[in-house]
């Protein structure tokens, strides 16, 4: 499953998600956004693995906030990530 969106006043982001038994099996987040430090993308993607597709927005948002607590995301927000994830796994 794949979704691409140009975030309003932000950057282009693509989520490619595969799901197995209603849980995230693999995810790749790509685009022309900025994330400091850049290596946090690995932790961000790993953080999605195994989560149920039915996860609530609030819970997913908390999980992402926790993994990015020492990182800065520019050009998209955590809320954008949550929204795109929910949309693509629907």
């Amino acid at each position, binding site marked *: 499953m794949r979704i*691409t969106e140009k975030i309003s006043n932000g950057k282009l982001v693509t989520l490619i998600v595969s799901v197995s038994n209603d849980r995230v099996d693999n995810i*790749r*987040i790509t685009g022309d956004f900025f*994330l400091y430090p850049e290596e946090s993308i690995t932790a961000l993607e790993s953080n999605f693995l195994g989560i149920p597709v039915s996860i609530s927005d609030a819970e997913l948002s908390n999980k992402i906030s926790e993994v990015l607590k020492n990182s*800065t995301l520019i050009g998209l927000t955590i809320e954008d990530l949550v929204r795109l994830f929910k949309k693509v796994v629907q």
Partner: protein
Amino acid sequence: MNNWRIIPLQEFDGFTNMAIDEVLSTSIANGGPPTIRFYSWKPSAVSIGYFQAINDEVNLDGCKSNLVDVVRRRTGGGAVYHDQFGEITYSVIGKQELFPCDIIASYKLICSWIIDSLGLLDIPAEFKPINDIITNGKKISGNAQTRRNGVLLQHGTILHSVDVDKMFSLLKVSDEKIKDKIIANVKERVTSVVQQKEISRGALYQALLDGFTKDKDYITNQLSDSELSTAKELAISRYATKEWNFMR
């Protein structure tokens, strides 16, 4: 006041250019002077942002047949076609404390040096967050930044002349069905120095030197043999590898 180091315009292949930025960043983390370097890309190259998927962004066959290198940057942002003769690229590298902590504010500060430079050529320009400079409503410069080990690196390009059709023979568009429309749209949104004024690339470079060094103490020197050889090694061991460029 900090003594800046200015490294005059030199041309390298894309892998070496990215490696030089990393070598300088490491040396600055270890106490080296803040540095501004100017460079171009020989051969022409496409650079992609750290988070981009190479197969989504780049026409790899087109690059190969046009002898255009493809390299992943350490910075985020979008894919850029660096024509050997069509632009000037800069890097600003210094300890983070020299710049605003706020990322957009630090983009704005360094971009103001480009805006000053264009002003010297009577080309009015303004900063457009997040990371662009526009003139008469069109993009003339794109910029990208990373911060590691207490060091800020910002690099960016100033378009001297631009061939949008060539650019899109090397970059992919999100929807091939409306490619013509997208190219027309980019032609509307992107400009270059020569589209604004008849100014040579040499004159643009001089203006950039003047704009970037305004109100700064600085010394000018070339890359040392040791810096260059370390960069060449790093280019081979990282920036030219499939592992790096195809990581996404």
